[in-house]
């Protein structure tokens, strides 16, 4: 009985929720993940639920160290998210969450690529409901872009899987690597979902437009499913080191000048994903442990930050830094919880980010990536700057916006408190997290060198922030959008299409005009010679006929005698 695949429990919960009254739905959102987590906790590692369709062998439930870690993680996220969303009375959101969380779980436990593909796409389709549930035109367009990109990623995955099968290989989801074209296709599919550079804007776009509760769920599952997939399929792929390093660095510039605080969190999430991707690329046991441990912690602290910003949006209806400020007076508990999340993402010692990020950093150094390490260090300082300081500062402190509100509903506070406790708990007692990591490396983050170095980095980043603020150099929050890679598909391509289309129309008009002119000219000539008054169709008099016959006969007579 305990070997029931978690996704099945969630899907059944979703179907029941779809036809249940609100109170039952609310209970189910917490009860279903809790029951499923209990079952998972009591399941031995192993392979369950194999199936066969014609000659294809699939596997619905593979539980090993790696998938179990993400299984625990997604259950924790689903329970916390469920509590956070208890006040929501929107059937669409409540039901889609079951299918979204369930498919994410199905994805990490899929033993083969085709099964992974199926859950990959269910996750895409079910999660877009959390964006559309905002019910604005902006959210509709954003969701549409999100859906197209996510589904395209799934298609690439399917094509890659089919190519692997066609080459006579197996579609068992193990190490894939980049030796074949199929391997590259699948890497791109995973990369799109992991928000690789140039494919990253779906994240900042959709997460900022989703409902307050929706973005909490979105931040937990999609990208972490991709990180899991990369960790299983592409560990030690050196390219990923450079991709990861780039991902840590470039989004922080955008985060500094972005006004929408949930979009700031989106950029900050890409930065965190960068650390994970980098760890996967390095590929040593320590680095992989660091990557997946950081994914684990990120879901919790980034979830906490999204929850605190969701609470602000829920209570004030505003999320732009330029419109907020001074909220600590009316939301002191939310402020405190947000700061705990901020300290965790900034990797303060004793908070969760520190115990996982330091593994990736140490691994980068020990594998000789000194340049990469310097960029990661830069990104570490930067993340404190934009997520650690900017988010709490512009929402809760800075200039008083005059907004007076109250703390969010109790369920929201409870969910945030649980996350905050986990952040501090994991930070102070990392051995419990380390115990469920795939490898036993004997790593311990708390020694004088690491603690002092990290504290120095953070304190002097804060000092820089204070200095820049006091000098008036720090850029003010402005109502604006900043052009990013999405500019190409939101502006250049649509506008380019209009230009090309108009050019085609003009070209077609010109060709038509020329053809018509030629036709008219030809018709004129024909008409001139063959028309009613044309030279070829006029009637001739009998006298001239006689004259011409005479001329012909006379000519004939002449030639006959000559």
């Amino acid at each position, binding site marked *: 009985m305990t070997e029931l695949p978690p996704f099945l429990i969630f899907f059944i919960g979703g179907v029941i929720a779809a036809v249940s009254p609100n109170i039952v739905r609310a209970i189910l959102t917490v009860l279903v993940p809790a029951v499923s987590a209990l079952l998972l906790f009591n399941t031995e590692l192993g392979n369950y639920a194999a199936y066969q369709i014609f000659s294809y062998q699939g596997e619905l439930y593979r539980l090993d160290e790696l998938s179990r870690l993400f299984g625990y993680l997604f259950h924790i996220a689903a329970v916390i998210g469920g509590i956070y969303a208890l006040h929501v009375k929107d059937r669409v959101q409540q039901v889609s969450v079951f299918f979204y969380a369930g498919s994410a779980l199905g994805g990490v436990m899929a033993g083969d690529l085709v099964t992974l593909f199926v859950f990959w796409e269910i996750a895409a389709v079910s999660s877009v409901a959390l964006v559309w549930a905002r019910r604005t035109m902006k959210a509709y367009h954003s969701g549409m872009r999100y859906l197209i990109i996510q589904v395209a990623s799934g298609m690439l995955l399917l094509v890659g899987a089919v190519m692997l099968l066609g080459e006579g290989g197996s579609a068992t989801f193990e190490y894939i690597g980049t030796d074949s074209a199929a391997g590259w296709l699948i890497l791109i599919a995973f990369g799109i979902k992991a928000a690789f550079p140039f494919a990253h804007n779906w994240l900042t776009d959709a997460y900022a437009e989703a409902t307050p509760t929706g973005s909490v769920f979105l931040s937990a599952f999609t990208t972490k499913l991709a990180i899991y997939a990369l960790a299983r399929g592409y560990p030690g792929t050196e390219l990923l080191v450079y991709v990861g390093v780039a991902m840590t660095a470039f989004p*922080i510039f955008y985060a500094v000048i972005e006004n929408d605080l949930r979009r700031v969190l989106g950029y900050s999430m890409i930065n965190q994903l960068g650390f994970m991707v980098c760890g996967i690329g390095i590929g040593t046991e320590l680095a992989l442990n660091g990557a997946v441990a950081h994914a684990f912690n990120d879901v919790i602290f980034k979830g906490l930050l999204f929850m605190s910003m969701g609470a602000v949006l829920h209570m004030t209806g505003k999320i732009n830094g330029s419109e907020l400020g001074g909220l600590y007076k009316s939301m002191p508990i939310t402020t405190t919880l947000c700061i705990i999340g901020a300290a965790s993402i900034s990797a303060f010692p004793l908070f969760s980010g520190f115990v996982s990020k330091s593994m990736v950093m140490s691994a980068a150094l020990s594998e000789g990536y000194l340049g990469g*390490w310097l960029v990661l260090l830069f990104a570490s300082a930067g993340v404190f700057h934009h997520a650690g300081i900017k988010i709490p500062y512009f929402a809760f402190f800075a200039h008083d916006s005059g907004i007076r509100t109250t703390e969010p509903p109790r369920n929201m506070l409870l969910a945030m408190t649980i996350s905050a406790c986990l952040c501090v708990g994991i930070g102070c007692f990392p051995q419990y997290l380390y115990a469920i990591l795939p490898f036993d490396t004997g790593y311990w983050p708390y020694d004088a060198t690491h603690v002092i170095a990290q504290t*120095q980095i953070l304190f002097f980043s804060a000092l820089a922030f204070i200095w820049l603020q006091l000098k008036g150099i*720090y850029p003010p929050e402005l109502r604006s959008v900043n052009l990013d890679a999405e500019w190409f598909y939101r502006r250049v391509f649509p506008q380019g299409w209009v230009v090309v289309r108009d050019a085609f129309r003009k070209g077609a008009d010109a060709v038509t005009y020329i053809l018509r002119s030629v036709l008219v000219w030809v018709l004129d000539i024909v008409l001139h010679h063959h028309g009613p008054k044309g030279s070829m169709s006029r009637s001739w008099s009998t006298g001239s006929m006689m004259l011409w016959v005479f001329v012909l006969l006379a000519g004939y007579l002449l030639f006959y005698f000559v």
Partner: protein
Amino acid sequence: MSDRPNPGPKVRKGLIVFYVLCAGLVVLDFLGLRHAENSLDGVYGFYAIYGFVACVVLVVVATAMRRIVMRDEDYYERHEK
């Protein structure tokens, strides 16, 4: 840069405590509590300098980026019907 913050006396006191803490952290380097892990971080105050400079560079570059990438809030919506 019109709203340059003007800290009150409480905040000023807090800032002084913070500056002292920063100075204390650098002193720890000179006490030899931190060990070098690579060819760069043996320099006294390496992390302090790096953290400060990194953030200033980050903010200055990001602010300069605004000149190129910043558009009106409805930049995309105007063209998306």
